[in-house]
């Protein structure tokens, strides 16, 4: 017998996978004209971070990594690097999740920004060490700022839209009843 809390958790993991699939689907639509525009934000990573701050048990790390690897394979990126670093970033946030929730959104935003920057830096260094061709720094920096700007929207949507929010003390029982 699966407990309702576990079921709830799995439902949200599935929802996360569905969101990722939707993002990939919208990205690969052949609508053309993508050259030269603003790079779209990295929604899967951002959503993973935003969820894990609120509910560390909602984003299984294995699922997160699997989704990222599939997107890397589909989007012609070097497989493994960015997703490995994103997993490290996710776990770093997961470890600080309690602290971040207490300190409010601004510190959460700053922490996510710093972690994204470190991920980007580590990726560039790693790729440079292995002599992999990289997109220009300006493009990547632009992508980073788009990510930072998009994070509050993603976080707001996941908290108010999808009800991924932290449990107040004693709320666990009510959630179980709800399911």
């Amino acid at each position: 017998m699966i407990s309702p809390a576990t079921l709830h958790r799995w439902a949200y993991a599935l929802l996360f996978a569905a969101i990722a699939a939707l993002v990939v689907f919208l990205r690969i639509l052949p609508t053309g004209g993508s050259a030269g525009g603003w790079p779209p934000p990295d929604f899967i990573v951002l959503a993973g971070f935003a969820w894990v701050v609120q509910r560390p048990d909602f984003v299984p790390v294995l699922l997160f990594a699997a989704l990222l690897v599939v997107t890397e394979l589909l989007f012609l990126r070097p497989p493994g690097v960015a997703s490995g670093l994103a997993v490290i970033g996710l776990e770093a946030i997961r470890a600080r999740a309690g602290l971040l929730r207490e300190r409010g959104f601004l510190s959460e935003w700053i922490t996510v920004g710093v972690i994204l920057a470190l991920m980007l830096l580590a990726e560039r260094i790693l790729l440079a060490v292995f002599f992999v061709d990289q997109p220009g720094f300006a493009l990547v920096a632009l992508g980073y700022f788009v990510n930072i700007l998009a994070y509050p929207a993603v976080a707001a949507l996941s908290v108010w839209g999808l009800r991924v929010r932290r449990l107040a003390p004693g709320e666990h029982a009510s959630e179980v009843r709800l399911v």
Partner: protein
Amino acid sequence: MGILVFVLFAVFFLWRIDSPRVERLRAQVVDAVVPNMEWALVPVTKAVNLAEGFQSYTRLAEQNRELRRELQRMKAWKEAAVQLEEENARLLDLNNVRLDARLSYVTGRVLTDSGSPFRQSVLLNVGARDGLVDGWAAMDGLGLVGRISGVGDQTARVILLSDSSSRIPVAVQPSGQKALLSGDNSPRPPLEFLDERDAVRPGDRVVSSGDGGVFPAGLLVGAVVAGADGRLRVQLSADYSRLEFLRVLRSHPGETVHEAGGLIVMNPVLAPVAEGVPAEASAPDRASAGEGTDEAAPAGEGTDEVPPNETEAGG
């Protein structure tokens, strides 16, 4: 989590060490995922295009008038083109020129975009099943679009000319300058390694040069424009905002001349000199000289007399 990160980095190392194998895996993943999504992709794409169509309906009358005018002009051009083509065919026939017969093509529909902001590529619904091979050129109706890179069973990826990893040897037409068209993720890729910048003007035609055997020569790429940063860039002829069908040119590996000796006649009997024709007369006309060889060879073998080459072989 440590193990997971280790596995992910191991995948990266594997990709770095044995790239072709992992790229094949990538092609297989794409092959498995994308055709399954086709049922959803096609209607959504159609809907998006329909919405764009509605936007343009607002200025339909104006567009119609413009198109009519353009059609008038084009008719005149078409007439000129037909006449020129006839003339060209006659002249080619007179000169006995052999055209490159290897340009047949497979047409595929564009399934998806690259999805990544840093890579410019599209996925076609033709693949190894249809005989596609890595490196073939893809064109839309007008100009060169890109090259095949990564072939699955039912899908193939086309790296567009604007991708930052795309480097195509091109020639700028009236002056014949060779250059490299290197994509940089912008809609107008710059020309690099141009010998004489002064010989190239904005508006010049850019065609593929066929150097390095990457592409067949003479495919239209676009026209030179002066970029805002002072570099010469290429306005691509292919309509990148509306890639729907692409034709992939089958290019067969061309015959190459490996050593100088292959061109010099080794055997006097098979020499391309017909009987009674002075050597000077046949030398300049290479086409007829080639036919001469073909005729001379069976004649030499068929005769009962002992030709000099047999005596040479015996000795």
